[in-house]
């Protein structure tokens, strides 16, 4: 809409006592919201920058494809995984991406149950990000199983000639169930939430093929009050299901480590600490994506500074939780009196991977402290930098946990240093290509903001009766 001026950020971060700061700015009415959200989709051509990023992302995606192909042809030996660190970068990348994939469901489910209305303008993009992150996460253990073509052995499918089943008492199998359930439920939740908005697209679409595609995807949605009634109940139930689910996923991912006996892994703090870390990194990823997206698409009136500030506050809070967990780990190692545990932690901080440990602490604990300053948490370009550091730190957290413990296990004769190979590095970078490509396509073809939900929290023009 012409009235939208994307260049201006209106400061809505201060709340007058007794009133609620508005979540939709620029005097947008219902139609205004629709126009703003549909504008990028209705534009004849996406902006130049979109093409630029897409080109970069697709080239990285090709790199990833090449690496995966190389891996399948040659075997997992092309990675740096080797005795004693048989869990190398693939698992680090897996946990990293799954962690990022937590923010979406957290925003759409937990904040929904807590009636945090500000979630409405960011939840759609965050859910999309979740799904794409889970896709990237699933890739790594997926190709790590070696004989990828029999991946279905992971699931309890009866076989004609094997009479074998998965071992249901293994955390790795719990992981299969947790991550695939999470992916499925996230997709259901995302799609269901999107149907009313796809119906908006259907009703505005001008091309034949678009009408057909969006028509089918919107399932014939009319916005009938009877439909809305069941829809809202279903949404609440899904939110109530997704909330324990999202907590269970990273808990179970942490079980992969915690259920083993390895010093540095075998701790009960892992589940809450992993979940906090996941929220931390997930929100950082949302901010990193949404700040450029709102600038490119002129969504400043919907994704306002207040939204960003709220997320930054959560980042700071979870960052401090993670920091506390780092400290507690040391305390417990000392308090346990187990020499191997004590060694494992001293080795983390001062052993031959000391650099990774201190990168992690700097990025995750020190840098987010900047958000104590209001300027830092309300200046878009600056918060992106902080959030990128947070994600670097969170990648290193998984690296430190996985590699330092494996390289210094109980048997000193097998101690070794871990070296990633080129394929390791290219696959990590390539996975960003996959993620970005998917996200760009999402921005182009699907409603980036949950219009129906945003309209639902807008104040009515003429007040309540």
């Amino acid at each position, binding site marked *: 809409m012409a009235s939208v001026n994307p260049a201006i950020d209106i400061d809505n971060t201060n709340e007058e006592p007794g009133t609620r700061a508005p979540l939709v700015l620029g005097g947008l009415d219902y139609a205004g919201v629709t126009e703003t959200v549909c504008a990028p989709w209705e534009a004849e051509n996406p902006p130049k920058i979109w093409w630029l990023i897409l080109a970069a992302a697709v080239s990285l995606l090709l790199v990833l494809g090449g690496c995966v192909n190389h891996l399948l042809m040659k075997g997992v030996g092309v990675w740096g995984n080797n005795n004693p660190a048989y869990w190398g970068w693939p698992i680090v990348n897996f946990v990293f991406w799954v962690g990022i994939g937590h923010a979406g469901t957290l925003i759409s489910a937990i904040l929904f149950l807590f009636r945090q209305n500000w979630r409405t303008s960011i939840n759609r993009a965050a859910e999309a990000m979740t799904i794409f992150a889970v896709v990237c996460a699933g890739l790594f253990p997926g190709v790590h199983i070696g004989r990828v073509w*029999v991946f279905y052995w992971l699931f309890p499918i009866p076989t004609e000639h094997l009479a074998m*089943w998965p*071992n*249901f008492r293994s955390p790795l199998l719990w992981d299969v*169930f947790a991550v695939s359930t999470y992916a499925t439920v996230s997709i259901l939740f995302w799609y269901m939430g999107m149907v009313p908005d796809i119906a908006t697209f259907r*009703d505005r679409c001008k091309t034949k093929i678009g009408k057909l595609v969006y028509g089918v995807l919107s399932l*014939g949605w009319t916005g009938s009050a009877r*439909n809305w009634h*069941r829809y809202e109940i279903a949404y609440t139930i899904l939110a109530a299901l997704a909330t324990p689910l999202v907590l269970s996923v990273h808990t179970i991912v942490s079980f992969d480590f915690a259920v083993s006996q390895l010093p540095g892994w075998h701790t009960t703090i892992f589940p809450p600490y992993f979940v906090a870390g996941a929220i931390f990194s997930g929100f950082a990823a949302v901010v990193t994506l949404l700040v450029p997206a709102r600038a490119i698409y002129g969504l400043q009136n919907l994704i306002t500074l207040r939204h960003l500030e709220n997320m930054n506050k959560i980042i700071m809070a979870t960052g401090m939780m993670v920091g506390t967990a780092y400290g507690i780990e040391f305390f417990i190692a000392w308090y346990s009196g187990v020499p191997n545990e004590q060694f494992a932690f001293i080795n983390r901080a001062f052993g031959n991977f000391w650099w990774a440990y201190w990168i992690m602490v700097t990025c995750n604990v020190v840098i987010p402290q900047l958000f104590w300053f209001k300027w830092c948490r309300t200046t878009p370009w600056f918060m992106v930098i902080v959030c990128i550091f947070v994600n670097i730190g969170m990648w290193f957290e998984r690296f430190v946990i996985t590699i330092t413990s494996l390289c210094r296990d109980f048997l000193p004769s097998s101690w070794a240093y871990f070296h990633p190979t080129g394929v390791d590095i290219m696959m990590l970078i390539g996975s960003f290509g996959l993620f970005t490509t998917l996200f760009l396509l999402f921005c182009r073809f699907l409603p980036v903001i949950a219009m129906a939900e945003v309209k*639902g929290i807008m104040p009515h023009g003429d007040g309540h009766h």
Partner: protein
Amino acid sequence: MADKHDNDSKLVGLLAQFDDPDSLVSACNEARLAGYKSMDAYSPFPVHGIDPAIGIQRSLLPFLVFVVGFGACFVGLGMQYYTNAAEWSPIFPGYAFKISGKPIFSLPANIPVTFEVIVLSSAFATFLGMWGLNKLPMFSNPLHRISRFKRATNDKFFLMIETKDEKFNRSETESQLNQWGAVAIEECRQDLTDNQLPSWVRLVGLLGVFLLMLPPVMIFRNMGMTNRQPRLHVVPDMDWQHKEKTQVLSPVMENGEYLFADERAMRQPVDGAIPRGRLEIDSEMYRGLKKDYRPKSAASSIKTNAQFVSASLEDKKEAPAAEAEDVSMWLTKFPEGITVDQDFVERGQQRFNIYCSACHGYDANGNGLVNQKAMALGANGQAQWTAAKSLHDATVKDDSKNPLGRIFDTITNGRNTMGPYGSQIPVEDRWAIVAYVKALQQTGIKPLTAVVDEDAGGEDDKKSDADGGSDAEDKTS
């Protein structure tokens, strides 16, 4: 009601437009109070307070989800129990993993998967249940034909009072709607002429179904046929390997000839090759032949210690039968390294009962079960059978004609119509059987213990016993 029908379209209801949610809610309230039941409101977002206004009953969805989730709890647990703890089923049986002596089924370890199964099933129940109860997807809806209605997903609010409501009256309802603040009112008509699918859709659909049926038909057809080709493997799995198996024909070359002249795919070891651990240099122990024995004919392939030890397995097998019976070559005492004591003979008894008694009988009088049955069949002309010899037979028993080494050889390589047991019975056990056979021969059918007591002295005593055991021989013959 008359004006609802005309030739090519049918009135479904009256659609009133409102510009904001609050006037929609108040209009709905009015309509309900006026007694309308078949009506629905349409809005771009769920409008607060609309449910009581048009009298929507609370949905059954939560109950449905609860039932599914509750059931999934048992399905999840049951699945894990079945696959990891129960092995009774004849089809796709479970497999009880034993891991570090932990219990086969323990609730804590099975909770994560149960939980995920519950969440997954409940989520699907919610998702599918919601669309099902909403009767969606439904792509044909007269509302979608009204251009004004396109704003129902944007910024406008609608109330439709349907013709099927008893109180519906075209003109009266319209004036009521106007009264309740409708901004615009429009008829919603269902097009009756247009309810047929275009004819090509059917054709394409039919063709599609036909094409879809082809693969399963082909698969089932092939499943019912025999085929000499190896199975089709989409992904090369380890259960099929590109190699020839034993007992099959040799691969055929392009010119139609067998790759291997003997037409077998299986290859024999190179001449003189000795498998690991089968050097068997000690001819007394492994072949029952005297150490210093030399075969008279150079062609003979019997190898003794005196000769080069490259005896291959085949060599040994052909040997003794081909040689004219030269009894002097057989060992007359047990080889070095074998001590005959009670344990050894008892071991021999046990092995004899397993391997030999079926034909020779427990007491070695040649009347085991197989023999009895075979003789009975033979009497009817239904079988050809050479009676298993009684081992108390004079020829078998006579040490000069049938020394220990020869009995050992009989067991190892068979004799006449008796088959070889060398491949089934380890060397020491064969010697133990020999000892037991000798013991049996002395006693006739007397119980073992009595003999062993006399034999406690070892082989020399036994031999003298054997010489003097003529009464036993009389008994059996």
